């Protein structure tokens, strides 16, 4: 075990612990942009710098292993100065349009500017301008808001394995890009949206959710995805009784299968819920045409016909196709209905299709 003093508090951590984690254990809230517990370390945003006695420079706590007897200060004048200046530098390049930004409420740049009282930037000057191109229907890429934390690049490689994006050029011309800065659709991108999940600012957002609501306006309902059999958990974002988006919880307790990772269908394929083509009333066919009916009428019609067939041709002349898409409870009821009420084992579903 190593002994450290963090903000005056003595703590013990096992060898190999990073300073960031030790500071968090000591109750310090360290700001980070590039750090992501699920991704390889970058050590590049320098927001997590702390002051360690005897060290000339500030140390990025996310990549500094703890050493015995370190005396650490996480909110010293020097760290505050560094963080403020970094925020101002990022603000100087950032397209500030918080009024309409999708990420408001979940934007780390905004949160930290608030925390450190950074209203505007003393370093405002030329702004980079990165063309916003991408006709894909899923992911909005606005690199004028990018802060170059590279979490998207790492998530694309390490979580999804698509390796569609990387950093191109260098210095302040550096930008996240596909090969030859082409469209995502022409790259190896699979539109999983993991980049959106890890983006700490408004650079990457969902086009499907655009304009529908921001994080403080919606509730998140944890549920299981309706598509393939992997069983990913996801959060339906609900505002005014409407699903306005999908996010995911990366905690394995809530997301044991996928730890927040989703695919294009899970993340972007939810808007059929509110499709105007949804069936909203029972229908009965008369003379080849459907007409709306009340539940009472429709159920009566169906039940009476079923009973008549059973009477005439026996229970085995009736079958049910239950569903691989409805719940266990509904499947249970479906087979019970066929077996107990109709009296046949003619129940199956599309397991083979």
């Amino acid at each position, binding site marked *: 075990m190593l002994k450290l003093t963090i903000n005056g508090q003595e703590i013990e951590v096992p060898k190999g612990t990073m300073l960031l984690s030790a500071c968090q254990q000591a109750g310090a809230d360290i700001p980070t942009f590039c750090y992501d517990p699920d991704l390889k370390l970058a050590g590049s945003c320098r927001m997590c710098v702390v002051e360690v006695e005897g060290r000339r420079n500030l140390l990025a706590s996310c990549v500094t292993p703890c050493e015995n007897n370190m005396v650490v200060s996480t909110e010293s004048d020097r760290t505050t100065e560094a963080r403020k200046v970094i925020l101002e530098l990022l603000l100087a390049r950032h397209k500030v349009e918080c009024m309409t930004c999708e990420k408001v409420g979940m934007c780390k740049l905004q949160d930290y500017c608030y925390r450190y009282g950074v209203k505007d930037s003393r370093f405002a000057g030329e702004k980079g301008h990165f063309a916003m191109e991408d006709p894909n229907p899923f992911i909005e890429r606005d690199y004028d808001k990018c802060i170059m934390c590279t979490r998207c690049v790492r998530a694309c490689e390490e979580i999804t394995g698509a390796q569609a994006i990387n950093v191109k050029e260098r210095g302040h011309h550096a930008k996240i890009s596909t090969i030859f800065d082409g469209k995502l659709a022409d790259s190896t991108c699979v539109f999983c949206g993991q980049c959106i999940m890890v983006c700490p600012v408004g650079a990457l957002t969902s086009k499907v959710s655009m304009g529908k609501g921001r994080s403080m306006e919606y509730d998140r309902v944890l549920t299981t995805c309706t598509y393939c059999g992997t069983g990913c958990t996801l959060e339906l974002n*609900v505002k005014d009784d409407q*699903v306005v988006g999908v996010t995911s919880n990366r905690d394995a307790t809530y997301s044991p299968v996928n730890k927040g990772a989703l695919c294009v269908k899970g993340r972007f394929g939810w808007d059929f819920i509110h499709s105007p083509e949804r069936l909203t009333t029972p229908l009965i066919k008369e003379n080849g045409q459907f007409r709306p009916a009340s539940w009472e009428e429709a159920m009566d019609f169906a039940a009476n*016909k079923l009973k008549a067939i059973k009477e005439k041709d026996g229970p085995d002349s009736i*079958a049910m196709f239950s569903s691989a898409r409805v719940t266990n409870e509904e499947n*249970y009821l479906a087979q019970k209905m066929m077996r107990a009420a109709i009296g046949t084992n003619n*129940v199956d579903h599309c397991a083979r299709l």
Partner: protein
Amino acid sequence: MTNSIGELGTDATAIFLIGTNTTENHPVIGYKIKKNVRENGAKLVVADPRRIDLAEMADVYMQFRPGTDVALLNGMMNVIINEGLMDKEFVENRTEGFEAVKQVVEKYTPEMVSVITGVPAEDIKKAARIYAEAEAGSLCYAMGLTQHTTGTDNVKSACNLAMLTGNLGRPGTGVNPLRGQNNVQGACDMGALPVSYPAYQAVSADANREKFEQAWGVKLSPNNGCTLTAAINKAHHGELKGLYVLGENPVLSDPDSHHVIEALEKLDLLIVQDIFLTETAQLADVVLPGVTWAEKDGTFSNTERRVQRVRKAVSSPGDARQDWEILVDMTNRLGYACSYDSPEDIFEEIRKVTPSYAGITYARIDQTGLHWPCPNEEHPGTPILHAEKFSRGLGLFHAIEFQEAFELPDEEYPLILSTGRSLFHYHTGTMTRKAVALDVHQPENVVQVSPNKAAELGIIDGEKVRLTTRRGSIELKAQVTDILNDQVVFTFFHFSEASANVLTQAEKLDPVAGIPEYKVCAARLEKIV
């Protein structure tokens, strides 16, 4: 799956994929496989008629002729036995019937199998060695293995291979079917099968029937029911009069659509309960509007047997009604009285008659789902099956000979047509075709054809072509791609405008499982002039 999904990303040291385009059909499982290969150096063997994404990073990729799975697997077993790579201890202690298998696979030399499958003998050897020598070898498959007239044989062969190499019962091993639909596992678990009650309790066994008769307080039929595909045939013959379809779309999903439509039209009564007016619902006599998963509470069981919660997030539109309420209402109207307060109330009844679910409660799975079997409330669930012994005691080997697919190419229909799914759509497209972004991104069907074949037929990429089989014909765009060889074409079944199942055959199914042969039929591709 005998094992859990997470193990594919962490524990498996070799992964053998056969008939699964994992990154497209189970993307999140695909991520885990990629990560394991890239970061932990896990070995990867891919067998698929198309050079799928994962084939690019595979140590061995075997592009085999569709329908020759048994030959390929027997060939691998031949190598394993001859090179002394089998797990003798496992075979001796945990299995029976090995000698018969040994006799059968003896003639399946890599050279002989190479002729059948088109895979170089050397690759078969390499693949066999990687899987057999792995500390933890996981075998995963999906519909590519099962949707054949020999589907059951294919799966048994895969099990043979796993038992032969002792790749079962430990972390990172297993025979792992990757199931295609959110709750296909649960539907099976719940007894939505013609031969079993919940938890696979056979309806033909008197004891089981008595148990359910007692639980439900009613006399039950001792006869096995008919499968979905058989039901369609029976309807066609006029033996089946009434059909209740809950959230299914057989017009698009079942083989030979013309045949399906004819059958449905012959019914006296077709009830469809769904969220959209699907192609099947359009043929119904009465349509009952149910709700989407976002509007209901309940549970789904995923491919690794993990039972997880589904939660209601929003209200349903108009008069659409909870599916469970519709079913309860109907059951009562049919003369069997029952009542439930909530899905949880139903689940409580499920627990009582489903031993594998007995220990699972809504409270226990509030945060993290549980893997069945979970026999009591103290049980932690079972991520890995067959750890100590198989359900039947000893694992049973099945000696299986290779048989050709039902419909092979001939002069008139010279190509092999295989069908499947795309990353961007799901099943019959009922949901994804109405998800705007997905449908904008991939709005129509394509047929994939090799550059050579396209050139031979004078077809250019993106051109509209005609794809024809003995059942019918569809028109769709050609996608020229080198991921398949010159004898094979591939298309998707999500699109009603150019529906793949107009083309597939329903004449011959797998004799045991009744699964249709979606992966092989004879077809002709033509330029439209």
